[in-house]
């Protein structure tokens, strides 16, 4: 049953046009369509077939889709596990039957061969630095995020908090988290206060009203931080409508057009981009390498991320547009 390859029995194998790899996301999000662009580039380059699968409703759909891939005899899967810790037994089952690597999020306890991913804690700290640049004089900061159950969201959030409060850097493997409902976080001598983290369950209307409510509640709010892609555009809207452009700064994550526009216009300070297309591209190349017997030296391939501010936004945006075009599903 399932794919027949294991990593040591196929050292001499070469990819050909019957080779199929799959790129499995953790949900349905524009971010993943940008990643798909990278997959398409790699597909073209290698002359193979790749499937991009986006499970709409969490773990169940992810599991079901990966099972189907095994049934189809897939040659390799790059997956972003939704619940790494608990999905481990299943991932091991997959790894037994095909080449399995993780991307975007890791499952360190599993038998996946490689993890390609940004260090979200570091990315969070980089975002924290942007905040520091945006409001050097210090002040109250508010965080917005879709869901905090996702590891990357928590790591990102913690990175921002630690950076702002000048705490020492933590190891990604065991980050200590502040409680999710912690309010008014600060340390002695720090100029920054992290007021609260509000979640919206991916409802954009909710995201925007969260931002509005924050402005009502906190008169001295200096900076909003959107941890998920859609959070910052929502915040910009809210700030704009409250006529507080300039007096409330914004730093975001990822690369939605509205955020890039705001950066161009000077309405937002900057964003951290994970360069998603590189995820897709590197994942497929990695699968190919492993398929052909080339294991990387290190199990962890740290993905770079880029800070985008007014200086480099034009160039970045052009690149993104090109990728979005490529990522359209076939």
């Amino acid at each position, binding site marked *: 049953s399932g794919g027949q390859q294991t990593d040591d029995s196929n050292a001499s194998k070469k990819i050909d046009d019957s080779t199929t790899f799959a790129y499995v996301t953790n949900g349905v999000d524009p971010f993943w369509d940008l990643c798909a662009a990278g997959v398409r580039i790699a597909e073209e380059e290698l002359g193979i077939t790749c499937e991009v699968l986006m499970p709409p409703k969490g773990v169940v759909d992810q599991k079901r889709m990966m099972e189907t891939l095994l049934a189809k005899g897939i040659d390799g899967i790059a997956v972003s596990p939704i619940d790494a810790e608990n999905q481990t037994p299943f991932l091991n089952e997959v790894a037994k039957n095909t080449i399995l690597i993780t991307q975007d999020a890791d499952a360190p306890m599993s038998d996946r061969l490689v993890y390609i991913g940004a260090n979200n804690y570091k990315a969070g700290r980089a975002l924290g630095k942007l905040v520091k640049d945006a409001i050097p004089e210090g002040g109250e900061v508010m965080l917005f995020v879709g869901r905090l159950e996702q590891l990357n969201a928590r790591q990102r959030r913690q990175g921002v908090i630690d950076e702002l409060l000048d705490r020492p850097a933590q190891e990604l493997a065991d980050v200590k988290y502040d409680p999710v*409902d912690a309010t008014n976080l600060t340390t002695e001598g720090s100029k920054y206060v992290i007021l609260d983290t509000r979640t919206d369950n991916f409802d954009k209307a909710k995201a925007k009203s969260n931002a509005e409510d924050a402005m*009502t509640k906190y008169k001295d709010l200096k900076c909003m931080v959107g941890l998920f892609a859609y959070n910052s555009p929502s915040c910009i809207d809210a700030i704009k409508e409250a006529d507080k452009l300039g007096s409330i700064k914004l730093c975001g994550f990822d690369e939605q057009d509205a955020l890039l526009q705001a950066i161009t216009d000077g309405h937002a300070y900057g964003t951290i981009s994970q360069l998603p297309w590189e995820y897709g591209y590197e994942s497929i190349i990695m699968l190919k390498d492993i398929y052909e017997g080339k294991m990387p030296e290190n199990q962890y391939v740290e993905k770079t991320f880029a800070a985008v501010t007014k200086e480099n936004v034009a160039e970045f945006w052009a690149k993104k547009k090109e990728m979005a075009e490529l990522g359209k599903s076939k």
Partner: protein
Amino acid sequence: MKKNIIGIFALLVVIFVITAIINPKFLNAYNMQNLIKWSSLYAVMSIGVAMVIITGGIDLSIGSVVGLVAVVLAFCLKIHGLDPWVSIGITLGLSLLIGLVHGLLVTKAGIQPFVVTLCGLLVYRSIGRWITDNQSVGPVPLEGDKGYVNLEEILGLDFIFSGKIPLGDSFNLPTPFIFLVVLGIAGAVFLRKTIWGRYLYALGNNEDGAKYSGINTDNMKIIAYVLCSFCAGLAGLLFAFELDSVQPAQTGEFYELYAIAAAVLGGCSLRGGEGSILGVVIAAAVIRLIYNSINMVGISTHLEFGILGMVILFGVIGDEVLKKTMAKKQLSAR
């Protein structure tokens, strides 16, 4: 009917006062204006679904219609650079068409409304994701978009659908409120003063009876579904301009439940034949108020759903008790 409205109105006042006491900032102009804006957006949807519920039907698809209309709008305005008013026409036309299909399937094919609109929920969401390749899109074009040439006109539309009209020093009236007022009054007049409104109530209560009275019940039901989808479509436009960004997979998700909850809380009976626009609008405001209060008071967002659920449940139970007491009083008065 009036007793219902008193109940829900009292609920509104109670939550309002409690929140204001706990956090006086709740009362500031900016917050009020936001509250009015969000209430208006959701109320527009709820008015539509109330029409269908009055006929004894249900519409589970409105969330997906909101999403699809928002997607198509962005598609027309931004990506294809169509004339802005034509785009508005296309999107509203689409929503009318959807309503028509629902109505026909319910009346002519005899499929239950729950089933028809459940399928709608799935299908429209899927179409929205498919035509955009699931990319977030916004109605307002940016430089380089085909629609950028129409920017000025589109910004005009943006103002119409999501602008703010300064009233006095610090208070701005959100334009969706004007939509709500117009739609609400039109809806109330339609339901209470016109023959068609009366037909809706009659057929919701006794379809055969209405039919035997010479009412074309099929056509009236179709009209209800068309109005419902139209309201959802209008809400889709309002949401698209309000959010300036549409996520095909998420925009509007679960809104059908909010709208139905508002309709029920506002006094509509799911058995049909009962309900009023005013009640539904107040109930929609109560739901938004609850969300706002939770943020203002600083309760964990995890509990939002739960609090909303409890309020609806107790609201409906209270209403039931009120009705029974009234009935008893009436009886003993005989």
